[in-house]
């Protein structure tokens, strides 16, 4: 039995590590073909890895990516593909920024004000995802289609609201536009790191808590069991008395609520306003990170740190004369090869188990289930 566990872990690790190695080889090939030196890239990357600022920025990016990944993973565990994390977090960040920045909030005690902001963001994210859930359970609309459309609608809604006549303020002569700046009481202080001009987001702790809760709920509660069961086999779940519609609604609401948190570290730790330069597209990064981390709380943490570092090393590549696009290529190849590697490992595992079953048939031991 111990042998089996060890092999299982080994196989689990083999896929992502193999994929990373493969991705590195592909990138080296591309660099060689385009006439860039692989050594330069390695140099630039290691320079970046020794610069405190780059590392702090990487951790900050990872914090945000991790939250996005957990939001996506909650859906994945139910076989729900929430592509709408992007729209959910942008709408949530914009509305909660408007709330947190509103003048009447200045007199609210700091802790309460931050809590209100974060809860508001979760509610908005959940509500936006809830629309897709409602469409699915009442009309059978695929959440893939509806969440993509809701992303687009969120974009227009945010544009509409981000107007001086509504929730935004402008400063004379500036070409930017954003919500009223959140005053100090509503901000979350960061952690100083010596040698770095940027601070680690205080809300990195929020990501840790969310990661822990994700693990706890999924593997230690009845609800988590039902959620995973529904994802693995809907008919089996129905047979054991689980209401699939209820599970769809609840998991989409949870996914949306976590998606609402995605913008919080940046908003309360650095931007303090939702303006035109608030980072978009984090929801899609979340999908990649969730895939890479196999929806596992620790796996996604490693994946988000890797993603964060690659993104923040791009400037170092650029200044050393290597096109920054190599990072995008690397990320794309990693995701593709991870998907392929998992499939290969899965097939290998099924075959190995079938062989084990076959050889066990001669004996009197009970058969073990051939799991997918």
């Amino acid at each position, binding site marked *: 039995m111990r042998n089996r566990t060890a092999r299982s872990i080994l196989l689990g690790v083999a896929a992502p590590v193999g994929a990373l190695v493969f991705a590195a080889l592909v990138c080296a090939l591309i660099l060689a073909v385009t006439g860039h030196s692989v050594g330069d890239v390695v140099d630039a990357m290691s320079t970046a*890895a*020794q*610069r*405190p*600022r*780059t*590392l*702090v*920025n*990487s*951790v*900050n*990016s*990872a914090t945000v990516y991790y939250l996005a990944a957990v939001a996506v993973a909650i859906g994945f565990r139910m076989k729900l593909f929430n592509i709408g994390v992007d729209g959910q977090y*942008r709408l949530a960040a914009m509305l909660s920024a408007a709330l947190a920045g509103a003048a009447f909030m200045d007199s609210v005690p700091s802790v309460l004000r931050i809590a209100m902001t974060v809860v508001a963001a979760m509610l908005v994210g959940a509500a936006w995802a809830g629309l897709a859930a409602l469409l699915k359970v009442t009309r059978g609309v695929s959440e893939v289609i509806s969440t993509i459309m809701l992303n687009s609608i969120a*974009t*227009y809604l*945010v*544009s509409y609201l*981000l107007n001086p006549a509504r929730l935004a303020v*402008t*400063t*004379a*002569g*500036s*070409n*930017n*536009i954003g919500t009223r700046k959140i005053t100090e009481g509503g901000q979350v202080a960061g952690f100083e*790191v*010596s*040698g*770095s*001009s*940027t601070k*680690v987001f205080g809300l990195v702790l929020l990501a840790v808590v969310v990661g822990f809760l994700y693990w706890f709920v999924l593997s230690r509660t009845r609800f988590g069991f039902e959620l995973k069961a529904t994802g693995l086999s809907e008919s089996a779940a129905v047979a054991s008395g689980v209401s699939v519609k209820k599970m769809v609604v609840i998991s989409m609401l949870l996914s949306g609520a976590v998606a609402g948190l995605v913008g919080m570290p*940046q908003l309360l730790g*650095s*931007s303090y306003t939702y303006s*035109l*330069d*608030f*980072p*978009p*597209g*984090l929801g899609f*990064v979340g999908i990649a990170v969730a895939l890479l981390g196999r929806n596992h709380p620790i796996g996604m943490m*490693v994946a988000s*740190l890797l993603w*964060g*570092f690659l*993104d*923040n090393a*791009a*400037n*170092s590549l*650029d*200044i050393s004369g290597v096109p*920054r696009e190599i990072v*995008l290529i690397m990320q794309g190849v990693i995701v593709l090869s991870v998907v392929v590697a998992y499939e290969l490992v899965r097939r290998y595992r099924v075959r190995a188990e079938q062989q084990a079953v076959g050889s066990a048939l001669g004996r009197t031991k009970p058969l073990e289930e051939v799991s997918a």
Partner: protein
Amino acid sequence: MAVGLVLTACGSKNDSGSGGTSTGASGSQAPTSNLKIGLAYDIGGRGDQSFNDSAARGLDKAKSELGFSIKELEATAGETDAQKEDRLRQLAEGGYNPIVAVGFAYATALEKTAKDYPDIKFAIIDSVDPAADNVANLTFAEQEGSYLVGVAAALKTKTNNVGFIGGVNVPLIQKFEVGFTAGVKAVKPDATVQAKYLTQPPDFTGFNDPAKGETAAKGMFDAGADIVYAAAGGSGAGVFKTAKANGKLGIGVDSDQYNLPSLADVKDVILTSMIKEVDVAVYDFITSVKDNKFAKGNKVYDLKAGGIDYATSGGKLDDIKAKIDDYKAKIISGEIKVPSTK
């Protein structure tokens, strides 16, 4: 793993610095041939056929005429202020001075960086923020040039119906629309001005999607417009293509698009262009640093100061040029105040 790296990296203080550049442009006569210019682009970078390219032209001119070495860095869609700040700091750490940040999105990042490098001269395009002793803010009165092409459109329209296509619905591009509309209405108060933006932020593809420009322009021509002003960067090519196919006219933006090689096929439908000379601003800034005449603060490029104008290439405005120049003189003298917001 990365946490470990953070910890081991603590203590090295290669980040917050006071410039430490070899060129040291703090007042003393720096040997100009050693000037290294750093330039950080907005999303799209060199090759966007829009204002990044315009900045690149200014940089190229400085490079070829004055022999500076240059370093250009690009932004990625979806990045944070921290990543923009990192880009500026890496240029500063690399001894680049002066450093140009292209686009208002760099305002926050530059504010933090400029503080730590008082000896380096920075410029930012399109933003009055941040205000600092070592930052020049290069801004443009786009509404004034747009007003003049609006006047031209109003004088030339036969259907009493003109169109405005903005790349992305942001305050910067809204300035173009407001000025254009004001110009049209000044000549023909009863004229219809159709307005459309190709994308909404944070989707900035509207600046570089000719297909979207084509569709939007087709809609306007179908609705009766005969001249469309494309303030949409690279998407303008699609607008001109549709104009040509329908026997209508288009108005260009940023550079004198009649003379752009990439638009040679459609130049006969380009009535005029609203010229916004980011390249001149970048070049001027670089030479000012070279000559030790750096001036901090907001430098507005408008009709009066130059840097904003309308184009007459192609000769389509020959018959009405006098009238347009009349409006131009009035704007310069202050008799006409062009609005910049709705």
